[in-house]
């Protein structure tokens, strides 16, 4: 079977982002960009399913500007067989991303679409669910464990109450939680090999998807600052401070 992996490029998770003083956005110029951590986990899971002989081909796909090619090459170096780059300079909102991914799904006919549960830039947590809905197929979000048996997958989901197990018929959309796996490191020879792997580019306009700036962002602000705290010297001082506030 074929697995399609959504592979978004975002500001690296270790970067402490800054809001522009005029409120027009966050500073992204000169900031380190990386694969969305959840998407690395999605790719790793797809590769493991291929290692087990369950999947035969792993395709990574991204929507983004022309310079996303290097990002996709990373996915290929990690082990994906092919890459698809939907080229757009616009910021892509989840509904548009889901509509675009549906077009790729129709073209590629994967049995599993693996996506991260959320992108760490917009923190939306929507694209996988929207894709499953538009596609009319099952979803298993926040996956902590995935087992594929023939025409169905058994997925353990990390939910607020604990661990929920769902059985979904394939094809299906699965979104990854943090503890699904530990993504592999890219080795130098694989970077060389990745250069000759197929990378298809598609202009966003050619997908026939209505883009739509569904939600308009009018202003960016830094979060409210907490007032400066105090250091206490021992437990007695801490307890009396908390007692004074009526907290203990």
């Amino acid at each position, binding site marked *: 079977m074929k697995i399609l992996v959504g592979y978004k490029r975002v500001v690296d998770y270790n970067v402490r982002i800054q809001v522009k003083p005029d409120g027009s956005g966050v500073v992204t110029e000169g900031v380190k960009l990386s694969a969305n951590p959840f998407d690395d986990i999605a790719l790793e899971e797809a590769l493991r399913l291929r290692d087990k002989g369950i999947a035969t081909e792993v395709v990574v796909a991204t929507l983004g500007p022309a310079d996303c090619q290097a990002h996709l090459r990373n996915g290929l170096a990690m082990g994906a067989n092919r890459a698809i780059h939907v080229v757009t300079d616009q910021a892509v909102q989840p509904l548009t991303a889901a509509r675009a991914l549906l077009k790729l799904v129709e073209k590629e006919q994967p049995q599993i679409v693996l996506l991260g549960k959320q992108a760490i830039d917009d923190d939306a947590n929507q694209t996988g*669910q*929207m894709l499953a809905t538009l596609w009319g197929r099952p979803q298993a979000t*926040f996956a902590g464990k995935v087992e594929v048996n023939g025409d169905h997958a058994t997925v353990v989901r990390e939910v607020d*109450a604990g661990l929920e*197990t769902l059985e979904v018929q394939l094809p299906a959309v699965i979104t990854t939680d*943090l503890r699904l796996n530990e993504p592999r490191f890219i080795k130098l020879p694989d970077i060389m090999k990745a250069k000759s792997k197929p990378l298809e580019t598609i202009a966003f306009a050619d997908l026939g998807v209505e883009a739509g700036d*569904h939600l308009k962002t009018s202003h960016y602000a830094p*979060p409210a600052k907490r007032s400066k705290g105090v250091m206490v010297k021992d437990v007695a001082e801490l307890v009396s401070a908390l007692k004074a506030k009526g907290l203990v």
Partner: protein
Amino acid sequence: MSKFLIVAEHLGGKLNSSTARCVSCAQAIAGAEIHVAVLSDAPEAVAAEAARIAGVAKVITVANAANAHPVAQVLAPQVAKLAAGYSHVFGPSTTFGKDLMPCVAALLGVAQVSDIMAVEGPHVFKRPIYAGNAIITVEAPSSMAVVGTVRTASWPAAGNGGAAAVEAASVDAALPSHTRFVSLQQGKSDRPDLQGASKVVSGGRALGSADAFKIIYSLADKMGAAVGASRAAVDAGYVPNELQVGQTGKIIAPELYVAIGISGAIQHLTGIKDAGTIVAINKDAEAPIFEIADFGLVGDLFQIVPELEQSL
């Protein structure tokens, strides 16, 4: 006039407090008429609870054996049908709401506003991005229904005292059979629920083992607090996953948050920024957690925690 449909979250015949928090959010829009939808195999008890929430005008129940467990792709077509005539369809930003609401939005062909933390107008909301390091103001089109999830930590639970009418609805929607609920393995705990607790004691990597984490439970029990954890403590297997606090775990806003042996990565801080008072106990005086702590104490947690428990 704004007309809200709020999808109730419930488990084991009990309403989750996240529903009353969604009601508070909806009430931030002046003149909003608020209805709550309870989808279940046996909705009566949950519906009765929802009807008592102050500010709720009507509770709509959809009884169906297929709704015994909250499978998003089964619930979504029903919610989308119920949504006709509503200007807003909201759910909580819990794993239940995050799983379900984008499906509803996709069926309605609209974008979703995730994690609403403030309301500026019927179609204008504030929400956090980049792990809470930026707050954006977003405007949803006024020509379509607004589908949103409510950041529960930003809103108090609306009180009781309501007496809404409960009305059974039948929904004519084709439900898929491609997903089978197998099981739910719940962490069994007598402690307060992490997301609703007024006090939370959290432990991090510095505890060193699941066994050592017992001092956190012990302190929490003395304080009547819920127990949380950093990602490091969860990954190391000291505590179950559902205790994780942070960007990818639970976002909480207790009156008192005590972080013990937690360095304070950006991803953890985003989960506790709205706590009333933050206490940090850490042996590293340079740990980032001290930048946001109201009270900081530098020292060995294995001495401090038992001492703290004794002096309470």
